């Protein structure tokens, strides 16, 4: 949709901090003083980022191709042996399946619920600020707390199940996160409860950025509400959706806290990559195996963030 571009810069919160947009054509020798200052100012953070982020990413990749299965560092090069073994590992395979299910459940719920809430709030309702606060509040709760609360809520013999029983909706009872096959989807409910409010805030900002003339023009052309959303609002919000997909996608890859609280479940049905990595590295001292999972998580994240950065760059150059 070509329309989406016109609104692009206004509706990419979170991405705005990247790359200054000063015109490069005036840069000549007389700015030497500036350049020195600029380098001086940036140096501390460049050094810190270089060491604490990029060096350790590289180091993690390196550890993943050596044989280091104990506390003692062992840098014998073994190539992709660790990677091959990891992909044959049953728990790891379950983790990948869980990642797909988790990402699907989490992203869908966050984006659908976030968008619905934002649309409702945008409809000029009374005490909008109150509702906005209520919806975004879970985001202020830590993942550990969310995990604990939802563990109680979804515990099969109490919580929601008991509530359903009491009001005569016994057929809604479910094994929730203890289901050995679909338990991971119950985990996404807890995660989405926490994160939907934030996605709502993104969409709300996007909706506020859509000018009234556009909506009025659509109304004059005879568009009903459905058509207004289908052909005007949703396409205009594409950049927001893109941001939401990237944020929730990243959240799915790195999720740790909620599975850590809920437990890995029966046969790892609620296990997550990050938690598996933590156990390998810090509880089994299998440094290389842990590094394989860490590296894979970086690669997955790069696949997600790459297109996002590219699109930001594209918007700026246009």
């Amino acid at each position, binding site marked *: 949709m070509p329309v989406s571009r016109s609104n692009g810069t206004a509706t990419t919160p979170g991405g705005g901090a990247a790359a200054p947009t*000063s015109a490069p054509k005036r840069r000549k020798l007389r700015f030497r003083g500036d350049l020195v*200052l*600029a380098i001086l*100012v940036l140096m501390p953070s460049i050094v810190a980022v270089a060491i604490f982020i990029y060096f350790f990413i590289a180091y993690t990749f390196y550890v993943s191709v050596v044989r280091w299965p104990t*506390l003692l560092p062992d840098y014998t090069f073994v190539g992709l042996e660790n990677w091959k073994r990891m992909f044959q590992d*049953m728990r790891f395979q379950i983790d990948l399946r869980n990642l797909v299910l988790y990402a699907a459940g989490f992203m869908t719920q966050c984006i659908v619920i976030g968008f619905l809430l934002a649309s409702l709030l945008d409809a000029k309702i009374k005490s909008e600020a109150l509702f906005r606060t209520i919806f975004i509040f879970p985001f202020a709760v830590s993942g550990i707390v969310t995990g604990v609360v939802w563990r109680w809520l979804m515990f099969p013999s109490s919580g929601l199940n008991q509530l359903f029983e009491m009001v005569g909706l016994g057929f809604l009872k479910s094994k929730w996160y*203890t289901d*050995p096959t679909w338990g991971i989807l119950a985990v996404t409910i807890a995660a989405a409860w926490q994160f939907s409010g934030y996605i709502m805030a993104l969409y709300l900002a996007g909706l506020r950025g859509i000018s009234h003339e556009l909506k009025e023009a659509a109304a004059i052309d005879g568009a009903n509400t459905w058509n207004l959303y289908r052909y005007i609002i949703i396409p205009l919000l594409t950049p927001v959706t893109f941001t939401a997909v990237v944020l929730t996608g990243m959240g799915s890859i790195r999720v740790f806290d909620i599975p850590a609280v809920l*437990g890995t479940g029966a046969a790892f049905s609620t296990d997550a990559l990050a938690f598996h990595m933590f156990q390998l590295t810090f509880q*089994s001292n299998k440094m290389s195996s842990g590094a394989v999972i860490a590296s894979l998580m970086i690669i997955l994240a790069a696949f997600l963030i790459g297109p996002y950065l590219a699109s930001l760059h594209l918007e700026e150059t246009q």
Partner: protein
Amino acid sequence: MKQLNRRQFLKMGALVAGGAALASCAPAATPAPAAPAAPAEQKPAEPAKPAAGAQKLEIFSWWTSGGEIEALNGLFEVYKKRYPGVEIVNAAIAGGTSSGGDMKAVLQTRMMGGDPPESFQVHLGGELLGSYVAAGQMEDLEFLYKEEGWDKVFPKTLIEIASADGKPYSVPVNIHRSNMMWYSKKLLDSVGAQPPKNWDEWFVLAEKLKAKGQPTLAIAESGAGFTAHVFETMMIPVLGPDKFTGLFNGKTSWEDKGIADALEILKRALDYANPDFLNVSWGDVNDLLVNGKVGMIIQGDWTPGVLWSKKFEDFGWAPAPGNDGIYQMLSDSFGLPKKVKNREAAINWLRVCGSKEGQDAFNPAKGSIPARIDADITKYGPYHKWAMEAWKKDKLVPSIVHGAAAKLSFMTDFMNAINVFATKKDVAATHAALVKAAKDAGLQK
């Protein structure tokens, strides 16, 4: 921002960054403005430091709850009496995902950073040998065992479990027994049964209880660990104590058919477990027995303390089926890291841990028995008296799930394999997973 010109903005930035750099150069957490005053503040502290340092004994443990604190303090009291003038720093850290998880994480940083505490709690055997001993960070304690005559008061098998290359690396302060069965007297009486002596008798009992709609075996497998503990007590009778111990020194192959047979027993037994076992966590397992939901728990001898504290008295105990005469043990112990600040204080600490006085001060409160066979039996309750007798004459085997038999990574793999088995019940796949784990851990070629 566009109102500021670039030069001004950069200069401001340089000032801020410079300030931050200055602040970070200032000595430890002293804010920049106070920097000139800092040296003056530090001076009085410095002369006091070495003096206090020479007298310090820092002890890491994960003992932070009621009876455990009391037990640890008992040891501290004995130490203070014998070696006055030493300041004991109790660095106990609670919590974590496995026993002592958080403490182990902090300890690891300290050990790898070359700043070990004087001593730390660790499960005797594989857990220590496979980690810090293999990394060359512990002193062997052969000299201390000789000096204190411990080779005469600790059972020989126990010293073997504590040793690598024939040298012991830690001093056991207590002994727990893991292959125990705690049964509801009421439920067993209801079908007129005696506590089963082997797994065949157990299945007869379980069938009788099942006919009344009563599950027999408590299982809690919302996370890995509990079922693995129960499974060990099935491996022991199938393999026998010698072959079982051989699994960890390369004498018995993990491909042994006995492992598959034990898995078959577990598979059958799970049919008689509380049906919601995938939702129950290890910590809640005692309530199953208290509330009459199961006929028995197969669990270590920290259980009776919990049951008594819940005012539940109507239970009996016996070794797990087929485990009579075989004492599956785990032990909390203390070792001596290399490069400790106060080696003398640390060695004295180990002397207290291994002493009769120390063990009799520690164990009654902890609910465990002393590792020494010459302990004062009058200080202990009925179960523990029974256990102390067994400790003297039974054959000893180490526990996998409690860190005595093999290193941590194997323990984790073992628990995870059995956790998957509890859901999928695939004997062949689980046996293969166990063989793979054994190879990974270097238990077999």
